[in-house]
């Protein structure tokens, strides 16, 4: 027994000693770890709610997290300021020399990350590449009205339009437009795939590495044309799949800044002294898409009844925790010059009028229909609340079917649906919200909606160069649209950025131009 005990004692002691020595050895270099608190030589700007960045070639990219990075790496001819006014970026000035001709004078001394100068040849090459009819850029339709691009001299370029096209300037700005200027000398005859993996632009930051689904690493472009920018020499952009994890990462000091915030947490975070919350009305639209080719949504009275049968304000409170605005059309309030502020009766909660419309419809109470949604985030709550409110008001039997976002989108495109929640994020011109969604030929028109009067107004708006007059045309078009209720406009959500109190200089834009705003950050 003594021998047994002795063996047990030794082994226990050995174990304890070993564990203590191991722990001590392990803890020595701990303070040098990557996530530990850092000085401000690296800004850790987390992309929250997304984990996939696939392509960093602006002409090929389409996903919002891809543009979060692209905006840091590239510049366009123009950009939006915080008031959503267009100002020069690579273009020093521009003029409209005839209804169909634009002339851009480029900034002198701009260089790409590899040191090569940026000239009018690069601008022509970029836009020709995006608009190429046989090309596969998802943005080519935006530039389809361009008939010719001419290099006048190394710092002057002219864009000739086939017809007057007012949205052009917006599409030449640093948004999700694919018009970020790329280097001709690397792409003309070069390997597009390797460019997409290691992009070279003129932006404040240059690409260092991308670990798929983990993070993107950037470093300052020493030849950046804006004096003194970027202030912070390095940027890491961790891809954080859950928005809630973005919050915990920020509160725990693992990151300095987030691209988005979960709506439910915003009210509490606003009270938290450890966090700065930036919030502004967003450039987005959320609606219920209706398939006009199937019952019961082929009946305008049924659609109108739906539009008045639920409370948009309550929806904003319940679905977005108050972080949004009830919609009054497809054009969001953040595009104030084209937005109708006076509430349209057909977009107000009015149970009596809704029931009266239902009586005019060939479909009565008890009508069944399926509303598609997906389970992520607040989208499911959105669909459920809509269906519940409408059913309570009208006695209909709308049923929610939960699928997955990719599947819902595939079914929308194939017109294999009755109704579905949907929305568009980060669009910067009213043309995208109206022509592309409502025009008979609009590529986002998955509803089968067609109204010649609306089409005519939207075509006229494209040719109207005066912004105020153009805005009035959109208001008219949306009023006509409201009568038809082609989709059920619901709300616009706010955009948010969270940051530690030490982060200064970040300016939020309504389309959340995340990466493009990092150059101006002065401290972290």
């Amino acid at each position, binding site marked *: 027994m003594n021998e047994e005990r002795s063996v047990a004692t030794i082994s226990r002691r050995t174990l304890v000693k070993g564990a203590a020595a191991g722990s001590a050895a392990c*803890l020595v270099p701990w303070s040098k770890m990557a*996530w530990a608190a850092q000085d401000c030589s690296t800004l850790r700007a987390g992309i929250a709610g997304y984990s996939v960045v696939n392509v960093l070639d602006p002409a090929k990219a389409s996903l919002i997290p891809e543009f979060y990075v692209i905006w840091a790496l590239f510049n366009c001819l123009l950009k939006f300021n915080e008031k959503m006014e267009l100002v020069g970026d690579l273009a020093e000035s521009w003029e409209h020399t005839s209804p169909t001709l634009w002339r851009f004078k480029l900034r002198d001394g701009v260089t790409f990350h590899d040191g090569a100068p940026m000239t009018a040849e690069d601008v022509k090459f970029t836009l020709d590449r995006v608009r190429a009819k046989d090309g596969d850029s998802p943005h080519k339709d935006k530039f389809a009205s361009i008939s010719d691009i001419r290099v006048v001299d190394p710092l002057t370029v002219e864009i000739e339009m086939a017809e007057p096209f007012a949205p052009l300037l917006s599409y030449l700005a640093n948004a999700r437009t694919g018009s970020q200027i790329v280097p001709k000398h690397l792409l003309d005859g070069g390997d597009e795939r390797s460019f*997409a993996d290691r992009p070279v632009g003129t932006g404040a930051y240059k690409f260092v590495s991308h670990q798929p*689904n983990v993070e993107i690493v950037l470093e300052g472009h020493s030849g950046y044309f804006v004096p003194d920018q970027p202030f912070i020499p390095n940027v890491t952009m961790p891809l954080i799949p*859950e928005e809630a994890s973005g919050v*915990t*990462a920020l509160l725990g000091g*693992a990151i300095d800044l987030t691209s988005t915030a979960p709506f439910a947490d915003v009210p509490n975070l606003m009270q938290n002294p450890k966090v700065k919350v930036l919030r502004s009305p967003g450039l987005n639209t959320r609606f219920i898409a209706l398939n006009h080719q199937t019952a019961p949504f082929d009946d305008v009275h049924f659609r109108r009844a739906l539009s008045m049968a639920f409370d948009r304000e309550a929806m904003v409170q319940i679905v977005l925790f108050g972080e949004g605005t009830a919609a009054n059309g497809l054009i969001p309030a953040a595009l104030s010059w084209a937005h109708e502020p006076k509430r349209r009766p057909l977009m107000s909660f009015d149970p009596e009028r809704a029931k009266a419309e239902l009586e005019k419809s060939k479909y009565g109470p008890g009508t069944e229909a399926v509303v598609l949604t997906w389970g992520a985030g607040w989208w499911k709550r959105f669909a459920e609340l809509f269906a519940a409110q409408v059913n309570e008001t009208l006695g209909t039997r709308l049923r929610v079917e939960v699928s*997955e976002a*990719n599947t819902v989108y595939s079914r929308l495109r194939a017109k294999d649906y009755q109704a579905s929640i949907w929305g568009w994020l980060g669009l910067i011109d009213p043309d995208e919200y109206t022509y592309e969604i409502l025009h008979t030929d609009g590529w986002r028109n998955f509803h089968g909606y067609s109204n010649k009067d609306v089409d005519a107004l939207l075509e006229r708006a494209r040719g109207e160069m005066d912004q105020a007059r153009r805005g009035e045309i959109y208001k008219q078009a949306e009023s006509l649209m409201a009568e038809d209720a082609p989709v059920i406009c619901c709300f616009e959500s706010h955009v948010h950025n969270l940051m530690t109190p030490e982060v200064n200089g970040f300016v939020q834009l309504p389309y959340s131009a995340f990466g493009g705003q990092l150059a101006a950050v002065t401290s972290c």
Partner: protein
Amino acid sequence: MKTLRYFIGRLLIAVTMMVIGALAVFLVMKAAPGDPALAALGEQATPDAIAAFRAEHGLDAPLIEQFVSWLRDMIGGDFGRSLTIAGGESISKLIAGRLPNTIFVGLYAVLFATAISLVIGSVAALRRGKLSDTLATSVAAVGVSMPDFWLGYVLILLFALTLGWLPSYGFTSPFESLSGALVTGLLPALAISAPMAAVFARTLRTSLLENAQRDYVTVARSFGFSERFVFRHYVFRNSIIPYIVIIGLQIRYLLGGVVVVERVFGVPGVGSLMVDAAFARDYPVVQACTIVFLAIVLSVNLTVDVTCAALDPKRTQ
């Protein structure tokens, strides 16, 4: 000879399971709705671009042709290239970079679960019916009822945000810094280990109690051996076999936990890769991750079988 035949038999079953599993995974992924072209090219993709993407990646080939080609490449050690989440990147490289992280967190969790359950299970069995037994059993019941993602956020709230002892997000690879991996992996490992530890402890307690009633234990006591000696050599050694079997079986749930917890804590592992790939319809990546998980489960099961055979006193004596 008998042991070798037993081992070879188990190995053949494992290989057969791998092939059936590969076919099942392939068919399930193909049957799932959604389109990788839309995921890769985005919502503004034109029909021409979608068709070109499908042709480029062989997605328009007949199903059987796609499966044979995939299986052939896989047997040759090539999982192909990612379609959507890391366009064009070698999947073998993607998995090789992440597998050590997943294995590290998984082993860390098993280590915790085993240590915790050994204490709780033994205490509960030795003090059956007493307050410490009730307490240990209650803790186990709470542990098994807690979803790992919820527990993950609670642990973050307590240890990272309130006490500030541990990081709230991010993971350092064990190759980069072992101490970093131990610190950053602690909360994810704890989150995964709690439900496992509860199951382990309950199994150990039941097994210890069963064995304590056996005739050979009574005989051992009648020889005058001390209670400690009887517990160690007669009760514990016999009870450890079902305990190890349960640890092996729980590996499946461990991998399930890893998938969720990696996303909550930002661990760049195979679990989070698989979830991202599934959302983005990156078929080859999901298939490769599933095959890797399947291989891990089958290898662990095989190891458990062999270990139990070796540990069983009836076989060794």
